[in-house]
């Protein structure tokens, strides 16, 4: 798949959102709201439920499907309170030894006035900081857009998986094109340069697994449910020390070993 095709597919209106995955994969999902600091960010859905019979914490960045929903979800662009809402659930998951599943689908953290006033940078940093040593398994799946720091804030994990037609990038192709060539219409070219497809990222060692998408009705989600459950069981069987050491080394080697 060409890079820009993946970008377009990831942004498609017909694409299943995080909520669809939760409905399809998690039994008896109970949504838990709010960050206990400022408010409840509707761009982030967080809660608990059962995955193949085992309790799991699920955190998803939700874009919404209809126009009204999209507005309600702020188009899947979280504010700091969204990341702090996620962090509260991460802490609860650690306390109750529940593994964490993150479903990432965002163009990026919301670039707004209030977001900066409430510390968007600090909120993202804090999530990564805590996730790096949270004493329970974390699996993140880029189900659509993996937009920069706003996506990484929920992807400091033991493994990161990606849908085959998703993308994960340090900057949007439009943003890169306008910096590189002062021309945001060159996004297609920029997307190629950024190596943002699942295949590229697997070969760069940024992700572990590519999830085939069979159709938009979401038949792949049943296979995904089994794969996620099995991976989380595998990680839960690890000694905490080994789990955290492996997570540390996972990121430690990224970018080369600089002999």
């Amino acid at each position: 798949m060409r890079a820009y095709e993946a970008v377009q597919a990831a942004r498609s209106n017909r694409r299943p959102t995080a909520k669809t995955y939760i409905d399809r994969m998690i039994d008896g999902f109970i949504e838990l709201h709010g960050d206990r600091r400022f408010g409840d960010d509707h761009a982030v859905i967080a809660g608990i439920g059962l995955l193949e019979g085992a309790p799991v914490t699920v955190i998803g960045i939700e874009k919404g499907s209809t126009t009204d929903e999209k507005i309600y979800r702020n188009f899947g662009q979280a504010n700091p309170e969204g990341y702090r809402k996620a962090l509260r659930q991460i802490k609860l998951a650690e306390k109750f030894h529940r593994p964490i599943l993150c479903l990432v689908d965002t163009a990026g953290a919301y670039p707004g006035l209030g977001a900066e006033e409430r510390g968007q940078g600090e909120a993202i940093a804090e999530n990564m900081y805590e996730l790096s040593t949270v004493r329970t398994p974390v699996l993140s799946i880029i189900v659509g857009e993996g937009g920069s720091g706003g996506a990484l804030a929920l992807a400091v994990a033991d493994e990161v998986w990606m849908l085959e037609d998703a993308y994960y990038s340090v900057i949007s192709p439009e943003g890169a094109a306008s910096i590189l060539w002062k021309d945001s219409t060159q996004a297609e070219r920029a997307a190629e340069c950024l190596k943002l497809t699942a295949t590229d990222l697997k070969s760069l060692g940024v992700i572990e697994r590519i999830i085939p998408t069979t159709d938009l009705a979401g038949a792949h989600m049943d296979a995904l449910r089994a794969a996620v459950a099995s991976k989380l069981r595998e990680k839960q069987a690890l000694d905490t020390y080994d789990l955290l050491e492996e997570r540390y080394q996972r990121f430690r080697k990224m970018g080369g070993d600089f002999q």
Partner: protein
Amino acid sequence: MNRNLFGWGQADTAAKPVAPQLPKPPEQPYTSCPECKSLYLSEELHRGGGVCPVCNHHLRIPARARIAFFADPGSFWEFWPELQGGDPLDFPNYVKKLTQARIKSGETEGVITGECTIGGNQTCIFAMDPGLMMGSMGSAVGEKITRLFEHAAEKQLPVVGFCLSGGARMQEGALSLMQMAKTTSAVKRHSDAGGLFVSVLCDPTTGGVMASFAMEGDIIIAEPNALCGFAGQRVIEQTIRQQLPPGFQRAEFLLEKGFVDMVCDRRELRGRLAEILRLHRREAE
């Protein structure tokens, strides 16, 4: 690379202190203050820490000049000066751009790392360089900062970090993004080992650096009027379709919103850092 008996191993990341190179003479012999236009001899200005004596504007100074200003004379030993990144994505024009920046700045990478004393207190130190692609965080920058925190954790030393960065280095794509997680993990380990990290936000500290180690200090100090934020101002203006209020994302704004511990004049910062380090001194066990 050190290979063990099994033919596989990890890079040798241990710190081997080397005497730092002398700062490259400033490219422009004269610098004019961007605020009040007063004209200074660049070398003299750097020696004084790069603060305009007329209007107190804090100029961007090279990382090496910054370390020379803050470290006790002769105390700085540099780590991994040769470490440099490649072009992992084969990105158009990256090698050319990086080479030009290296020649112009006299630095191989966007951060200088090492150990020094400040007011007699032993500490690890890093300073990011505006001349090398505005301190953007490529893999080598992430690697040097990660190694420094690992070294500091092992030697039970604090870290004083001068953050100055436009954010991620786009030309290294997702590998640049991953440096946020890599450095963060090392900062966390250093913290869990009881280490102190004083983060100093210099102008500018934005994007992926703001959203990682810059905001992970136990104590965060911002330089006066330094631009510190996550999203770029132009992007915010386009999103909210209105002009940003004056002072938005500046150091004083962050202090007001509760995200930094203090705003400190660079000329007083040295003494302030020394006091903080002294208060956190760990007696030899």
